[in-house]
Structure formats: C-alpha cells, structure tokens
C-alpha cells in the first residue's frame, strides 16, 4: 500500500459555474475542516538517539514549549550498563482554535551503555504494543472512544562528529523501518561548516541507499501544482537528511529577539534557513506533512502489522484444529495478558509445530525403511 494521494484543500466557490448546475457538494472540504477542528488532532512523535545530541532541545524549539521541566540526567558511571527506557510526555496545545494533543516518546539510554547489542528491542516492543492495543480496540465491541497511541513519526538523531552512519544507527533504523516512519536528522549541526554539511548529507544518502534503509519519503507532488510549490518540494527533498540546531534560549540578533545560540564568534539563529534546516523540518513535520505521516502509519505500517497478526493467528488455528476454511475467520482477540506472555505462548507454539513436523518426518523415514 502506498500513500501517494494527497488531499487538496481548495476553497470552494459556490457561485462559480451556472446556477442550474450547482449542487453544493463543493462545500465538503469546509465541512471536513469544521468537523476536524471540533474533534481535535493527536500526534505521537518519537525521538531517538544517543544522549547529548540535543533531542529535548529540538523538541522544545519545534513546539515552542518546555516539555522537560526537571530532568535527571544520569552520570557516566550509571550509564555503563543502562537499559533503554521509554518515557512519554503528553501535552495539549492550541493554535487558532485547532487543538493538538501531542505525545512525545523519548528513549533515554539508547546507545549509552558500553554494550549496546539489541538496544532497540524496548523501542520496537513499545511500538508493537501500541499497534496491538489499537488492534484490540478496533476489533472490540464498543469503539466509541478509541485512543490512537500509535507512533506516527520517529526522529532519529545522527551525531555530526563522525563520517556517516555507524553500526548502531543502521541496526536501529532497520529494526524500525517497517513499523514507523523514520526521519533521520543530523543533530548539533553548528559544528559543521557548509561544505562539511553538504558532504555529510551526500555520504548519508549514499549509505542509506547502500544498506537498503527505508526512511520516510516525501510524497511526490501532483503535476498540476504551481511551479513555486514544485520548486519548494524539490528543494525539500534534496536537503534531506535535515541538519538541525535547537535552542532553549532567546537571544538578541540584528535588532530582533530570536531563538538562537550565543557564541563568542557569532550568533546561530535557529530559524535562519542559511544557518540550518530547522525551518524546513518544522514545515515538513508540522505544517505540511503531519497528516501524511499519520496516514502512512495507519494505512501502511498498521495494516501490515494487522495482516501479520491475523495470519499468524489463523495459521495457528489451522494447525490446531486442522480445519481448512477458504476465508480466514477473523478471530476476536481474547482479553489476553500482556505482550510478554503472548510472546512466550507464540514461541511455544512454534516449538510445538516444529516438533510435530520432526515427528512426521521421522515417521515417514521409518515407513520408507520398512518398505
């Protein structure tokens, strides 16, 4: 399933055209707009990357609030054998009557321990849990107030101090690429000169192709959009991955108060497009593609998960009852205990199936020997 369709929001003009041909459904977009404002939106954003790359600062800059009031950062000693945790912060923000329930999922401890094998497992488990929760809610009897906690987008922070992707980056993105839309970012880009930024971006794009990593692709704009839009779109696509800088402080620059970082040699302005790609990221993430990200999550990733889930359930049913039904009967998931025990049950089932197969093989062999 692809997500190449985009909804155009054009203001309808009921007085256009002849009066006798006027039906009136051109006002549908308006109605959709009204209803959605009334309902409100929700968005879940996950940020992942090593500590000290400026994730929290960037989220604060993006949404112009202070999400992490009192954070306790661990010492190096405590982090030697730290496991990855998942923390969630939910805030309600409003702008021009449009309400947004924003959830930020943070992954403290990722990549910090000395031994980082399989450090993405808590993250993938969390995402799968949210899918499962939604699946259960969707298949339930009372579907009035379903809460959509599925992760819509994951911002992955790549350190700018290296020469490109590192093994831990590749393994993390590969583990997540089929579950959530991953947007890679170059963090703390104020240590890179423009030529270095360009080189690093090229290197990253090359490595993403080389290792077959699937990141979020912007949908192509329709051919009948105006030139300006097409040009902007092309520019956006060519500057991925975005090199971003975040800031918690407001400084005075060129007579204005801007969000920025003050250095002895100059002031880095976060919202200056010639300093970093923060504005492009904000435009993409919030202003133009937020809904597209939600659509991809529900049409693509969630549907894949759901299909997999159902297939595995029915194949288990078939193995148990030896019933061959042409159409897989969707089984209502029982109120089972948490994901841990279900995983164990699935493992045990796999083992049982394998043993049965071995038994069959051995019987066959004996049969052949007898003949």
């Amino acid at each position, binding site marked *: 399933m692809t997500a190449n369709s985009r909804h155009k929001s054009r203001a309808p003009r009921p007085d256009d055209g002849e009066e006798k041909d006027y039906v009136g459904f051109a006002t549908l977009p308006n109605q959709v707009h009204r209803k959605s404002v009334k309902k409100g939106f929700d968005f879940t954003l996950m940020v992942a990357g090593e500590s*000290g790359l400026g994730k929290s600062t960037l989220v604060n800059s993006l949404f112009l609030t202070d999400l992490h009031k009192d954070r306790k950062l661990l010492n190096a000693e405590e982090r030697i054998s730290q496991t990855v945790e998942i923390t969630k912060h939910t805030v309600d923000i409003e702008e021009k009557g449009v309400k947004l329930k924003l959830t930020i999922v943070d992954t403290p401890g990722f990549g910090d321990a000395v031994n980082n094998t399989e450090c993405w497992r808590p993250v993938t488990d969390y995402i799968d849990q949210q899918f499962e929760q939604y699946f259960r809610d969707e298949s339930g009897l009372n579907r009035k107030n379903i809460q959509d906690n599925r992760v819509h987008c994951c911002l992955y922070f790549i350190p700018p101090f290296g*020469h490109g992707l590192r093994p831990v980056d590749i393994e993390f993105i590969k583990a997540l690429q089929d579950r959530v839309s991953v947007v890679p970012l170059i963090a703390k880009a104020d240590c890179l000169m423009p030529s270095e930024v360009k080189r690093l971006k090229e290197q990253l794009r090359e490595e993403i192709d080389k290792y077959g990593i699937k990141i979020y692709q912007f949908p192509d704009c329709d051919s009948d959009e105006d030139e300006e839009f097409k040009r902007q779109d092309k520019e956006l696509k060519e500057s991925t991955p975005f090199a971003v800088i975040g800031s918690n402080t407001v400084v005075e620059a060129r007579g204005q108060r801007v969000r920025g970082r003050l*250095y002895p040699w100059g002031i880095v302005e976060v919202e200056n497009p010639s300093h970093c790609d923060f504005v492009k990221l904000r435009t993409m993430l919030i202003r133009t593609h937020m809904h597209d990200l939600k659509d991809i999550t529900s049409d693509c990733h969630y549907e894949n998960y759901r299909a997999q889930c159902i297939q595995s359930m029915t194949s288990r049913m078939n193995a148990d009852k030896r019933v061959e039904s042409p159409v897989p009967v969707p089984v209502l998931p029982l109120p089972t205990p948490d994901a841990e025990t279900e995983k164990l049950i699935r493992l045990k089932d796999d083992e049982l199936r394998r043993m049965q197969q071995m038994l069959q093989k051995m019987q066959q062999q004996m049969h052949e020997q007898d003949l």
Partner: protein
Amino acid sequence: MASSDVARQPDKGTRPLSLAGHVGFDSLPDQLVNKSVCQGFCFNILCIGETGIGKSTLMDTLFNTNFENFESSHFEPQVKLRAQTYDLQESTVRLRLTVVNTVGFGDQMNKQESYQPVVDYIDRQFESYLQEELKIKRSLHNYHDSRVHACLYFISPSGHSLKSLDLVTMKKLDSKVNIIPVIAKADTISKTELHKFKIKIMSELVSNGVQIYQFPLDDETVSKVNTTMNGHLPFAVVGSTEEVCVGNKMVKARQYPWGVVQVENENHCDFVKLREMLICVNMEDLREQTHTRHYELYRRCKLEEMGFKDTDPECKPVSLQQTYEAKRQEFLVELQKREDEMRQMFVQRVKEKEAELKEAERELQSRFEQLKRLHAEEKAALEEKKRLLDDDQSSFSKRRAAAQLLQAQSLTANGKKDKDRKNSGFM
C-alpha cells in the same frame, strides 16, 4: 633521557663548602643540553577518540604540518591502533614524533573490549624497553624509545557528561600513561554550557578515582602558569588546517555562516593553552613521568610476576644475582622432578599393558581348552551312536539271513512234500 630527578637530600656525612671563586661547573646543564640537542628528542603521543572526532586534524594543527591521514570507516569490527613516526625540526632542535591513533574506537555495538588493544599496545612498548634494559649487551642510549609519553583522550561534546565508554577506558589507562582529556569539536558548545560541562567532567573523573595528568607544580618558574592551566582542564579545542582571512591576516579558522571560529584565539577555544602546556612547557616532564612513574610501575609488576623480590622471607635484601640463581635451581629441580614423574608413569603404563596382554592370553588359552573338550565330548557321543547303529545293522542283517534261510528251507520242504504227494499219488 633526563637523569633521575630526585631532590638532593643533605647527606649527613658531607659538609657544604663555599667557593672562593668561579670554578665553572655551572655549565653542566648547558653541556647536558648540547648533548641532548645533538642526540635529538623523541616524543610519542597516543590519541584516543571516536571515529571522525578530529584527532588527525588536531595533530596537524598542533604541529603545523600535514601528516598523511586516512579517513577511517565506522565499520571496523575491532579497535586497532595505527602508529606513524615523523622527523620534525624547529630551529636546531630535532624531534622524532610518533603519533598513534585509534581506529574504530567507539563504533562497535559491544564496546566492552574496546580498551584492550590500547592497553596491549602500551604494555608492548613497556615490555620492549624492559627487554632492552635486561639484556646483557644493551644499547640504551641508541634505543628508540617508543613508550607512550602522553595520551590525548578526545571527549565528545555532548554537553552533559562523560560517556560510559570514556569512563571505563580512562580508568583502565590512568596507571599506565599520562592522560590529558580534551573536549573535541568545542565550537558546538557555548561558553556557559562549556563551564558546566568542564565541572561535570572533572567531578565525574574525581568521583570515579581516575587520575589524569596534572601539570607539575614543583618548579617555581612554571608552577604559576601550570596551576592556572590545571584549573582549565579539560581543554576545549577546535582544530583546523584551513586558513581564513580575518582583519588583514590569514589565520587558522573555521568559517561558518554566522561567524568565524579562530583556532588561536584564546577567547574562542583552549587550543593555545593546550599547545603551550603540551609542547612548550611540559613535554620533558611528560617524558620523565612516563619513565619514572608508569614504566617503573610496569617493571615492578612484571618482575614480581616472574618471582623476583627485593627482600627474601627473612626481610634481608636479596640481590638480583641470588634471585637468578635461586630461580634457576628451582627450575632445574622442577625439570628433574617432572622427568622422573614421566619416567615412572611410562614404566607403570608398560607394566599395565603387559598384565593386560597376559590376561588376554590366558583367557584365550582357557577358551581353547574348553572348546577342545567340547569337541572331544561330541566326538565320543557320535562314536557311541555309530556303534549302536552298527550293532543294529548287524543284528538286522543276521535276522534277515536267518529269515532267508528259513524261507529257503520251507520252500525245499514244501517241494519235497509235493513231490511226496505226487509220488504217493501214483502209487
């Protein structure tokens, strides 16, 4: 190598004399310096840091040259070390500089063994020096000293604290080499953040008992500047080999859209402080510390491992000679014992094997006897049967003969009777 720097203690047996005129031995330091300059100096730096953190660029900037640098990939399966030696010259002083870089440090998923190649390298250099020192015919004055004099540890500028890998590695190295931590790529940290970061790093190092190199305070001429510098540790450095025009001079700098970071501007970063401390003021002290502290520690541990002690169990001083002899004897005795053991074992094994073989032979013999007996029994039984059969046969043939005879007799008797009847008939 400078001579040992132990402060002269006033010996009780000698009395100080005052001179009546100028003798001239105040030129001794100059003579030493001349000799050293003729010989040339030697300095070895080890740079530890993640791939791409700026180790090679900083070396280039420090020594104002362009060493041949390779950009390494992030996908090395293990940490390796790459050592390169260069001959540099400044005015009349020649320096043989060896730069050792880590390759692939911090890139692996499991970094628990990352410190091991570094520790092994340092130990190897100590070991080769120790071997040279213990030789019978040695040439220490010609020896190219490859022991690591200074270790620059590059800390990633996260702004929060040290990484867990940094702590673990520095803890393993602090007793083997002079560690000088530097904050790399410092142009990404603002002044206030830098101050907090430095304090956090130093407190973490202290609380975990990591001993980094402190600039020496015992020499009055440099103690003041060294004290100030000790307070600026770790140095936040920026490296660059590109030159940018600032004002009307060309300076080493990095040009950003928002400004120019000048490497040699003390307001921008601590590069000048690092260069001064590392090269201009304390290079000789670093070499000395390596020799008197770290190398001696290594040597002592190694020799103790081999079994040498300074005092024997009765706490009387023992010379190396005696220890050698004692060790040799011990070794020979041990050898002899082992030889005897092996011989005994061999003899025993042979005996066992012999016994086994004998046993087997006996068994075979008894089985043979048994079979022979069985055979004879069966044969006797068969003979018996044969005899019976023969008897039967002979009795049967006798009876048959008797029956035949009887039959023949009865036939002739019948014939005679017939003849008689016939004959009587005629009468």
